[in-house]
């Protein structure tokens, strides 16, 4: 096991490749997403995507914000060698909606909004409300964990070099 600080810097690209692959999967291969969660109705890019291109110590950063922002510039950045550093996602299951941001280098989740639940009316309601909220967080965290697991299996297999890189390249070039 590597030291955590060393591992953080050495493998931050892996989280960014995961987000890039996830964008590709959302656009081109949603069956991968459904395999990770059979309750999934849809997964969409939300209101923010950040791409970073690293060159030695310099970092070029492109941020696209807004509910209906076009992703052409993001795709262009991808073609030029940038990876997705942050991705806001909208996850839907039945008529419920979750929205959150995933950061590539740390895999941290922020701005998590779950479906709204009733506030506790008194101390006797607290346990039920907390458990309901835990269930809602768990739903999204398990989904991300399974997706990451799937990505890692792909990333470590021979098919990553033989097939997946070419597919992602072809996709980014066809969309620009």
């Amino acid at each position: 096991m590597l030291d955590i600080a060393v591992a953080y810097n050495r493998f931050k690209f892996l989280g960014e490749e995961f987000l890039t692959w996830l964008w590709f999967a959302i656009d081109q291969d949603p069956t991968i997403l459904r395999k990770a969660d059979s309750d999934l109705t849809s997964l969409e890019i939300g209101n923010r995507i950040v791409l970073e291109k690293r060159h030695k110590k310099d970092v070029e950063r492109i941020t696209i914000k807004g509910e209906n922002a076009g992703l052409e510039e993001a795709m262009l950045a991808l073609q030029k060698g940038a990876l997705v550093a942050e991705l806001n996602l909208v996850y839907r299951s039945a008529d419920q909606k979750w929205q959150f941001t995933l950061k590539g280098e740390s895999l941290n989740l922020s701005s998590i909004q779950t479906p709204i639940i009733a506030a506790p009316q008194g101390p006797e309601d607290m346990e039920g409300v907390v458990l309901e909220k835990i269930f809602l967080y768990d739903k999204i965290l398990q989904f991300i964990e399974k997706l990451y697991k799937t990505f890692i299996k792909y990333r470590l297999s021979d098919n990553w070099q033989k097939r997946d890189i070419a597919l992602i390249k072809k996709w980014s070039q066809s969309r620009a």
Partner: protein
Amino acid sequence: MSLLSSSVSITRYQIQGKLKNPILETLAAGLKKNAISEIDDPTLDKAVGWTSFEKPYQPDFGGSSFVYGNYLVFSLRIDRKSVPVKLVKKHVVIESEKRLAESGRPYLSRSEKERIRDQVMDRLYATVPATPNLFDIIWNYEDSQLWFFSNLKAANEELETLFLRSFDLTLIRMIPYTAAHYAADLKDTEKDILLELTRTPFTG
């Protein structure tokens, strides 16, 4: 950050090791021993400790108050005193001018200036109340997983240090490498490949 807030941040951890039996008693002892206490020493600017999720300003770990179904729920509290720089500057200037007038000298030595600054800081810190910051924790004991409701680096570092001191268990933050190493059920050969990975060029 409260787990019941409308928008939250979560840092995920894997826990290495298990508590000694009886688990709940061991846990309660660790929480009580390292519970937050008010800052009594006026020269201290920070206090860090555990507190109850439902009673964050009057920690109480009695009974099984931190058990919610299969989860353990409590909070990290970081109380911090902060004095605005401009306020420090004002009091240092006032005090310096007073000393100059008393001594009749045209200037103060470097060590006198430092002493005045230290005295001013001690006096101000003694009068300023500490601001509490709360960060909720959900511990799934069975799965050895913990969610910490903050992405702040300083708060995460305080959590990792206090957790080890309280329960003698190590928290491993789920970053890209550790999430692959621990959570993806990798074979040994795959772990070796993981260590050698380099960035994929998606261009060209």
